[in-house]
Each structure stands twice: as C-alpha cells, then as structure tokens.
C-alpha cells in the first residue's frame, strides 16, 4: 500500500495539442480516489503515465516518495485493470491470474494458494480452467480484477472497469468493488466518466476537464461546493441549472437589490433545491411548466422562464393548470465567474 504523488504533469501527443496540463494530485495510503471526467479528457492517459506505459513531457510521479519516472511498468509495483480487460486469450483463467506472480518468482504453493483465495473472493473458482473466450463479459471483468488483486500491488489503477457491463450488473458490481478494495485496504485510482460511480465509491474525487484538474475533494464537498461551472454541471442528475445572474434579475427570479452586484456572474442552483409551490406565496414567482417527466420517485419539471430552469419534486406531479410558483433560496445559490 502506498502514497502516490503526481507533480505538475504535462503531456501532448502532438506538439501544440496539449492533452494534460499541470496535473498535480496526491493519493494517500489506502485511499480510493476517482478520476472523473468526460470521455477524451485524458483520464486514461494519466493512468498510463502512472503505470509507466506512457511518459509525461514534464512533471513527475512519486510512489512512496520515490520518483518512478525512469522505472519500467514492472518495477513500479502497480496493477492495472484495462477498460477492455486485456486478458491473455491463449491462457486459461488460472494462468491469467498467476502470470504476475510466476514472474516474480513466488513459490508455487504460495501462488496456487493466492490464486485460489482471490478466485474465491471474486466468485470465479469454477472458471479457473477456462479460456477467456469461454467467459461472459462480467466473468472476464472479474478475471481482470483478480489478476490485479492477486499481486497485492502498492497501487491499483482501474480504467473504467464497469463500463462494459450492462446496467444491472454494473450497479451490483459497484458496491462489491467498493467493499472489495476496503477489505484489501488497497490504494486505488479509479477512472470513470460516470458521476454516480465516482460519488458512491470514492473517498475523494478528482474532476478533470480537457486535461486540467477542475476540483479535488470529497464527493459531498464537490457536490455541495462546486468550484467551477463545469464541476457544478457535471455532478448531479438532473444537472445543476446554470444561468446568467443578469437574466435572472430581468425575469424576476432574483432580486436586483440582493444580486445587482453579482450581475456579471453566472449563477447555479440544483433542481432539487428550487422551492416549488402549488399556490401563490410571498417571494415566489409564477412560472409555466413546459414538460413534466415522472421518473418514479421524482418528477422533473422543465419550466418556462427567462432562463433555462429545471426543478425536481417528490413523487408524481399533477397540475392541470400547468402553473406553479417557485423560489430560489439564497443559501443554495452558487456563483461562478462568467
């Protein structure tokens, strides 16, 4: 288990087209940290640089305080789970899992004990003698995890390990994974584009946007105190409403006296924080409902105001008149530079 430090990493595959700029972060021993960002923002590239499969143009990677910049992947004592698993097709599951141990000259009985133990942990004991081609997607994913776990490396690097599973299996595996890595006290860097995975699994989230770090923090902190408009809109479903303060003042959603000084900024409010009333009330503004989308537990309302606004109400929503009154509570408003 280890402490990982990334210092000021820059990377461009073609000159002038920067993929990563000034990426720095620290992962503590035993921590589960997610790298969250849209597809193509450089998450995989960061993992590959940590693994030693790619070299950064500048900056350094430290594992347990040691600069591993010159070390090859095998000398970094890291394990990586690839997005498409990358199992060895010509070897059976047992050989797939034990490859890393065999190479590290670990005694045979110890290897078979650890393979057995890891296979049991992941529920793949029955398949040990099969080739990967005879496994389902979920089983392959487990084999890929087992191959990483069995090594007991300093750091686990996981590249969207759930993205190839169907929705049901993904939800189930998500909580399993979290438990699994808690149990082995692994230091994990988990790449995902799925905010739910990042929110539910990690102790901290690193939000990436176009190769830059937007914010680092605990899930709740990132959710409740987004530092940039990007972070604000990236986390939460439905995503945070973002609008110009000046426009909101124009259409009466915000008062000129309170927010006039902020009229150059952008404001944001989460749909679930908007107060909704069926009756006229003090301080509430009357708006028309464009669309009401019931999702079961909640209903998402798209409102017709001077700005794009969506609100969420509990349960089903029945309003024949298509009119409601809303208010944006001051304490739930976020402001970002425009």
């Amino acid at each position: 288990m280890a402490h990982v430090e990334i210092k000021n990493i820059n990377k461009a595959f073609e000159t002038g087209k920067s993929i990563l700029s000034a990426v720095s972060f620290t992962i503590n021993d035993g921590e589960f940290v997610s790298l969250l960002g849209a597809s193509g923002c450089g998450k995989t590239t960061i993992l590959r640089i940590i693994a030693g499969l790619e070299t950064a143009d500048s900056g350094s990677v430290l594992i347990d305080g040691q600069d591993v910049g010159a070390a090859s992947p095998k000398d970094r004592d890291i394990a990586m789970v690839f997005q498409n698993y990358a199992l060895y097709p010509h070897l059976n599951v047992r050989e797939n899992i034990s490859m890393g141990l065999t190479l590290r000259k670990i005694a045979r009985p110890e290897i078979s004990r650890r393979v057995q133990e890891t296979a049991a942990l992941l529920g793949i004991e029955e398949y040990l003698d099969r080739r990967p081609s005879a496994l389902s997607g979920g089983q392959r994913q487990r084999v890929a995890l087992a191959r990483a776990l069995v090594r007991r490396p300093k750091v686990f690097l996981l590249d969207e390990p759930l993205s190839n599973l169907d929705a049901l299996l993904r939800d189930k595996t998500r909580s399993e994974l979290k438990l699994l890595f808690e149990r082995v006290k692994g230091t994990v860097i988990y790449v995902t584009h799925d905010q739910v995975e990042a929110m539910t699994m990690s102790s901290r989230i690193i939000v990436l946007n176009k190769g830059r770090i937007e914010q680092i923090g605990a899930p709740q902190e990132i959710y409740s105190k987004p530092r940039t408009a990007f972070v604000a809109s990236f986390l939460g479903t439905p995503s945070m409403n973002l609008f110009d303060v000046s426009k909101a003042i124009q259409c009466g959603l915000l008062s000129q006296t309170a927010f006039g000084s902020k009229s150059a900024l952008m404001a944001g409010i989460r749909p679930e924080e908007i107060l909704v009333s069926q009756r006229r009330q003090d301080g509430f503004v009357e708006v028309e409902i464009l669309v009401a989308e019931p999702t079961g537990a909640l209903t998402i309302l798209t409102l017709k105001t001077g700005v794009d606004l969506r609100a969420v109400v509990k349960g089903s929503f029945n309003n024949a008149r298509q009119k409601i009154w809303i208010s944006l509570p001051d304490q739930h408003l976020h402001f970002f530079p425009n």
Partner: protein
Amino acid sequence: MSQKQRKQSSKFLFFGAVALVCFWSLAPFLWQVLTSLKSSEEVIASPPVYWPSRLTIVSYFKIFSARPFSVYIWNSLIVAFGTTFLCTGVAALAAYAFSRLKLPGGKAVSNAILLVSLFPPTLLVVALKQLIQTAGLLNNPLSLILTYAALNLPFAIWVLANFFKQVPMDIEEAAQVDGLGRWSVLWKIVAPLSAPAIATTAILVFIFSWNEFLLALTFMSKDAARTVPVGIAMLSGVTIYEIPWDQISAAVVITTLPVVAMVLAFQRRIIEGLTAGAVKG
C-alpha cells in the same frame, strides 16, 4: 428437374470437380509411388506398365544399402531444421521490432527488405559460392543454413510483422504491468498469439530448405555432405542409359513424407483461431 434432383446433381458436379483437381495434382506423385513399387524390368518397359503386376519394395532397400541415402536425409534434416529455427527466430525478433518499436527509418528498412526478396537467388549463386568458399564453409551444412535463412528472411519478417501488428496493444501492456520484459512479452504473449502465422512461416521455410537444389548442389560437392534433392539427382546407374527410376521414385516418396508430416502436425495450429476472447465480446 425437381429441387432435390438439382441439389443432387450439383453435389455430383462439385465432387466430380474436386476429384478431378485432386487427381490432376496428385497424379505425378501417384506415378512416383507406383514406379517405386515396380520391379526394375517393368520400370523401363515400353510401352509403360501403368499398374505393376507385382508390388515390390526392393528399391526402398536399395537406396539405403547401395547408396548413402540415410546420410542425405540426415544432412537435409540438419539443414531444414537449422534453417527453420534460425530463420523463424530471427524473423520473429525483426518482425516484433518493426511492428512495435518506433524505430527511426523502420518503415524504409522494412520496405527495403521486401525489395531485396525480389532478387532471384539464381543471380546470386556465383557470388554466394565465393563468399562461402572464403568463409571456409564449403561442404558444411552451415553454408546452406545461413544462405537459406537469409533468402527466406524477407518473406518471413513480412508475414510475421503483419501478424504481430494484430495482437492488441492492451494485452502486451497488461503483460508489461504484470512484470514481463520485452523478451518475455514476445515469447510468452505475442508469439503464442501469432502461432498460426509462425507455424505457417516455419512450414514454408522448411519446405523451401528441404527442396532447394541449386545452392545445395553448388555448395556441397562432397557426396557425404549432399542433401536429398541433390542426392536424388545424382542417383544414376552404371551407364548413363541406365537411370534407376525405381530408386529415384522410392527416394522421392521417402523425402516427401517429412513435409507431409510437418504440414499435418501444424495444420491444427494453422486453423485454430487463437485471438478469440482477448477483449470484451
């Protein structure tokens, strides 16, 4: 014609065509087999005897007793296996370098290699003989092994490089993270995954080395150093008018067997699709 009849007649035509092609290509070999089993009188009989009246395997004994045929076979085995291992091994290394390492000028070199293979070896015979002589390798199987390997390398590299490129990069990288160095990645991951291509290449190189005549004749002047094709060509009777066709045929049949055995042994490998199930599916 009914549907069924039509189906049957097309089936008949198909098998008829297959049989014809088989007969066409196997007829010479069949003729050799028959000849090798004829008695000496029937071999030279005119008009030719197509079906021997009496089968005899005496010519098979003759080539081993009256001629040093086992020595030829031994020489051929050394040369063919030596060439196959040397050529396939070197080609695998070169092909891996060309397909994976981003070497400066790698592309140009790999094209140049292909260009070199267009030279007909016949043009090189005299120059090669001088080289071999200078190196003191005349009548040494090494001379043939080195030359055959060199002649086959361009083709072998080209086939293998194209196959290696198809091994998903992810698998190699997973292996690197698992702790394999460049060498182990090649031998434990890339080569097994490219087994069909390697087997095919090896077979073709083996067949070439087993059958090659011109260079073998040129480099190996001593009878004890000769390979099978040259040995067969040198089989002759007491006079020039007395060519021992039965023995020649027996020799041809015997020397064709290793090649057939090789192909059969590797056939399963060639057909087997090994890359299935590497990634999600």
